[in-house]
């Protein structure tokens, strides 16, 4: 319950430093950064590019149940609040796994 693995602690501290670094660097750069329109578009694309890349294996390369559930979730997300979207996504993967598995 209270044990603390040294490698796990190292990862947590590393993640803390990296995360705070990204949060602080924007604050420090504010007002000093000149970006072209293209450069700004590319930087703006980072969140979507990264988040999509993280879930692509589950959504596209795991099984039909997950892929179909991802499609259902996308349609839910376009109309519904976050909580309802997650609920529908989770319920649909359970249903598709029962039907296909």
């Amino acid at each position: 319950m209270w044990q603390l693995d040294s490698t796990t602690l190292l990862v947590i501290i590393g993640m803390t430093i990296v995360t705070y670094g990204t949060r602080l660097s924007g604050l420090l750069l504010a007002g000093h950064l000149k970006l072209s329109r293209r450069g700004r578009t590319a930087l703006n694309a980072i969140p979507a590019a990264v988040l999509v890349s993280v879930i692509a294996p589950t959504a596209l390369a795991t099984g039909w149940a997950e892929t179909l559930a991802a499609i259902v979730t996308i349609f839910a997300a376009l109309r519904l609040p976050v909580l309802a979207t997650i609920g529908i996504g989770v319920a649909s993967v359970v249903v598709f796994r029962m039907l296909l598995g």
Partner: protein
Amino acid sequence: MIVHSIIEDEDSLGQTRSYLKDDIIPAFRDIWPLSVAMIPIAMLFGALASGKGFSLLETFLMSFLVFAGSSQFAALELWQQPIPVLAILFSTLLINARHMLMGLSIGPKLVMSKPLRWIAVYFMSDEIWAVAEKRAQNHQVTAAYWFTLIAIFPTTWFSFSVIGALVGPLLGPPERIGADFAFTAVFIALVTGFERSRTTLMTIAASAITAALSYYFLGSPWHIMIGAFCGIIVAYLFADTGEGENVAA
């Protein structure tokens, strides 16, 4: 609304204003719905972490110190023995690189001393940032406002991470109730919340296809770097160069 009076007294903060009425209560009103929505997600994080062998203390420390949900979920996704330390840190950097842009945008809008700003951005999650940006459209984002957000939202995140770690194992394997998919659903919800431009759609398509292919052929964690890189390149090459190109959803 008393927008004008707040914007006018730039240098006399706190003298003619009531912290409670003008900052603390509005902050509470703005952040509580997001905090409630975060409870099941925090609990899922705790449950998945305990499934990966995290102790309660380790779960608490990660949620308390890192406080960046998507990168915490991604770290769990990559978690195995031996722990791929560098891959986890690299994916944290990639996923949280967006905070740099958020800091660029919100930094000049924070009406507080420099040391307070340094502390303030420590807690700048997507939700805190989004609420503060909205507030900045017609109010000042004061220290009292920002730190009220922080008193509520991060506290919810790390407390319910721990509660999830405690009750998660009682609910059985997360796959049985589809809880493993909640992470994917959260990310889909976040991505559809972004500005829906042609460039965003092309970025998403490029990243999804290249990430899935590199996962299939090269394995984890290469899919994150390759997929993200391809998406960013596509955004750069096909950047909207004119106005009015946003497509309706």
